[in-house]
């Protein structure tokens, strides 16, 4: 959807905020969205959106990716299953992929992935921040307010804040 709206010109994100900063981002392909449902075309759309909002040179893909990606370990009820130790052992495969990109941000366009990848960062010395696309899309549109930045790192807390006076 985001890709369609950007292509149609309804949304006009800019990656200028990251021109000087050159902060790198990687992307988790959610199994449910990509491999199990819409396949590689939606994975391409996500990359189109991510590159439009963070800058093409600031996107680093994990390997393997798209339909061949590794599951993060957040799906299938894992987060509520009580098998925490096993879930984290499972998730370390994904964590190692993220670490290999050296990107300080991992974008997770899925709720389960977000929770799991966020937790895996915590058990890996908080090696990366875990963000939704909607947060970065708002940032790149210049409309991300001060109270919508929970998942951004310190480096982006004060960048292009929309209505900073509304901070709570």
């Amino acid at each position, binding site marked *: *959807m*985001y890709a369609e*709206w950007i292509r149609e010109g*309804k*949304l006009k994100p800019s990656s200028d905020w990251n021109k000087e900063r050159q902060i790198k981002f990687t992307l988790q392909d959610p*199994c449910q969205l990509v*491999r*199990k449902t819409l396949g590689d075309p939606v994975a391409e759309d996500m990359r189109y959106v991510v590159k439009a909002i963070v800058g093409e040179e600031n996107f680093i893909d994990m390997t393997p990716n798209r*339909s*061949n*990606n*590794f*599951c993060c*370990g*957040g*799906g*299938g*009820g*894992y987060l*509520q*299953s*009580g*098998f925490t130790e*096993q*879930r984290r*052992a*499972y*998730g*370390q*495969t*994904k964590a190692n992929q993220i670490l290999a990109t050296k990107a300080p941000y991992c974008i*997770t*366009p*899925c*709720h389960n992935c*977000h*929770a799991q990848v966020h937790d895996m960062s915590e058990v890996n010395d908080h090696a990366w921040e875990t963000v*939704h*696309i*909607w*947060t970065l*899309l*708002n940032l790149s*549109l210049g*409309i*991300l*307010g001060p*109270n*919508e930045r*929970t998942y951004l790192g310190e480096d982006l807390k004060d960048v292009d804040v*929309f*209505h900073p006076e*509304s901070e709570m």
Partner: protein
Amino acid sequence: MGDTAIKIGGARKSVFKDKVMKLLPEGGNLNACLTCGACASGCPATGLDGMDPRKFLRMAALGMDEEILSSNWVWMCSMCTRCMYVCPMQINIPQLVFNARATWAKEDKPKGITSSCDMALRNDTCSAMGATEEDFEFVIGDVLEEYQESQPEFAEMTADVNRKGAYYFLNQNSREPVTEPDEMVPLWKILHLAGADWTYGTKGWAAENYCLFSADNENWEKIVRLKAKAVEDLGCKVWLNTE
């Protein structure tokens, strides 16, 4: 992986595997395994609880029903389907796992999953966190008003609830309205700028379905039907699942 070899005592019948084969198109190709190990080599759950996807399938083929149906590994596999994707024979191991989960007595299944399923069945919202229709409508209205005022460029932004005839019916994971409502707003702003015609519904808005994860066939279907009915009752054209 260095484990002692599995000893099988004579011919056993693969009752469980045959049962699952009857459920799946082409029998899920469950008899087509070449034992190549592509599934296990790329599975993050390989090695957990001494199990991996190839071993699980082979044990099913060998009729070791008791062993695989009592293995906790079925809860350590996320059913991500990568094994099937890389399999040269497209064997549906994830469905074998799902149906193994389904054979567990409810009281033996992980409590966190079954209680989230139970909670979702308590309200027509289908919220696994138990949020009611009133809670949801209040939070949406409250947050919307707050942002319309604090970000005047978005004074005209909408987050309608139960608006009939909207094109999109948007769902929402319970976590946002219940624990971090500010996180809903960036998406509202995107929808506003794109001019999307959308609504929430008080019924069936919760995106999650833990009854599916607990392999409770009767209740996951009940929840999906309830959600689909909510979309249809409002006459919406597209059921939009959020990030």
